[in-house]
């Protein structure tokens, strides 16, 4: 029994490593810790503050560990009127859904957790539609007026952002002629798709900001001004899950943006190993992207919910349809056919 387990582990070492360590679980959790720390330090520096400096040296790298341990060891409170099963279920499921989306992103040639046989972009969007549903369940299950208001603001925003994002990615699908994310990356070796799909990229980026709920669109929580939006009733470890879900969602959508528009893992050869080279360029692009998102967070004021919804439906949706038509026309003129 034990020997069989050892031989199983040895034979499937690479698969297990991919699932549990690098593009899998450990990387995602490590990114969450890094991103929260980076956001706190970077925003503090832009506000001429220091950020955490006393916990773990000048860089404050132990701060997030201390926060997480404290939240885990705090008391869990279940409201009397809450639907306890859904209350716990939503807090567990919410980080899982964006993490499942990350499984479809190619990190390097051949380094992808789930090879979806040519349909990975469609499956990515199919999984992503579950996120607002669980988001509403968490607000409804707590049975508190603040969580319900927060959950509805959340779903208005998600739908206003999600449909333009889907339609602008259809432009990329048509331009590349494939649904496969790995194939889309390979076709960007000559030119990143942000150049032929510039209008689509603008729509995608604004929709992405609305979906990850960063500051110009952080309407459901409003930086703790509306209590805490749909997360109001969550305490301790369940609140930790909620914060984690936000940042895993940010990671998934930022990785998709890089894969669709900025050449994915493509880049000049620095390391001889193509896998190391691909991972290096993808992580570098990821860091630049989240730095830009955090800079936007601190530079702009918050929109009202009606302004954000109007932006999504009145401007982004027509622009994404216009982008799709332009892509079809351009592809017909250049290639001589829309398919392939």
């Amino acid at each position, binding site marked *: 029994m034990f020997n069989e387990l050892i031989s199983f582990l040895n034979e499937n070492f690479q698969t297990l490593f991919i699932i549990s360590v690098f593009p899998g679980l450990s990387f995602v959790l490590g990114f969450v810790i890094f991103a929260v720390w980076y956001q*706190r330090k970077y925003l*503090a520096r832009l*506000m*001429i*503050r*220091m*950020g*955490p*400096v*006393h*916990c773990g040296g000048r860089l404050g790298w*132990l*701060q997030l*560990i*201390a*926060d997480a*341990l*404290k*939240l885990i*060891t*705090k*008391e*869990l*409170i279940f409201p009397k009127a809450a639907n306890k099963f859904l209350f716990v279920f939503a807090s567990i499921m919410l980080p899982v859904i964006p993490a499942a989306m990350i499984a479809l992103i190619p990190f390097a040639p051949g380094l992808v957790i789930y090879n979806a046989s040519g349909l990975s972009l469609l499956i990515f969007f199919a999984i992503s539609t579950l996120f607002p549903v669980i988001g509403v369940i968490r607000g409804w299950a707590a049975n508190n007026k603040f969580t319900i208001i927060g959950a509805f603001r959340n779903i208005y925003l998600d739908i206003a952002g999600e449909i333009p994002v889907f339609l602008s990615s259809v432009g990329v699908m048509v331009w590349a002629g494939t649904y496969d994310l790995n194939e889309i990356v390979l076709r960007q070796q000559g030119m990143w798709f942000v150049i032929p799909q510039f209008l689509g990229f603008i729509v995608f980026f604004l929709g992405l900001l609305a979906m990850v709920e960063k500051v110009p669109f952080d309407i459901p929580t409003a*930086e*703790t*001004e*509306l*209590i*805490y939006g749909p*997360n*109001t*009733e*969550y*305490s*301790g470890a369940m*609140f930790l899950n909620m914060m984690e879900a936000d940042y895993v969602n940010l990671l998934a959508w930022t990785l998709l943006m890089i894969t669709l528009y900025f050449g994915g893992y493509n880049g000049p050869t620095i390391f001889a190993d193509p896998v190391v080279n691909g991972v290096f360029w993808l992580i570098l692009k990821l860091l630049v992207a989240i730095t830009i998102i955090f800079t936007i967070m601190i530079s702009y004021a918050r929109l009202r919910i009606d302004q954000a919804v109007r932006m999504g439906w009145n401007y982004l949706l027509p622009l994404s349809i216009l982008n799709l038509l332009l892509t079809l026309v351009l592809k017909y003129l250049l290639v001589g056919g829309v398919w392939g």
Partner: protein
Amino acid sequence: MSKMERVVEGRPGLVDKLPKPVKKLFNWFRSYSIWPIHFVTGCCSPEYMQLFGPRYDLERWGVLPMGSTRQSDTLIFVGNVSRKMMLRAMRLYEQMPEPKYVIVVGACATSKGPFPESYSLVRVKDYMDVDVYIAGCPPKPEAQAYGILKLRKKILEGE
């Protein structure tokens, strides 16, 4: 929650039964992650707000102001507390998960301050256990930062 009774402290936590090194670790991370919620009823709050700006920046010690009681550790009374507001404050205190701490800022909430014969003001210490009092009318931001760091030291030493 309509009677004005003293809030009963929560049951003794698991931490008290743990071995000493683990208890030390618990105290360490709790001391570095104080998330306060402020109960603003008076004019000490303009002084309090500066604590999270560039000059005093209590985030250096991991103090992060939160908006909801469910996620916060420390209830900070900033200003005078009337009989009516005390009911709300007690409800907030009961909503917070254990372990929780209370800081009282300013003379009014500590000892009715300049209104000793008021019919409506109450002292916070009559209703819940207070960890740190900060004297002053209003206390300067330095004094409030010192008070919060005193609470930090108290948690770190496990008192």
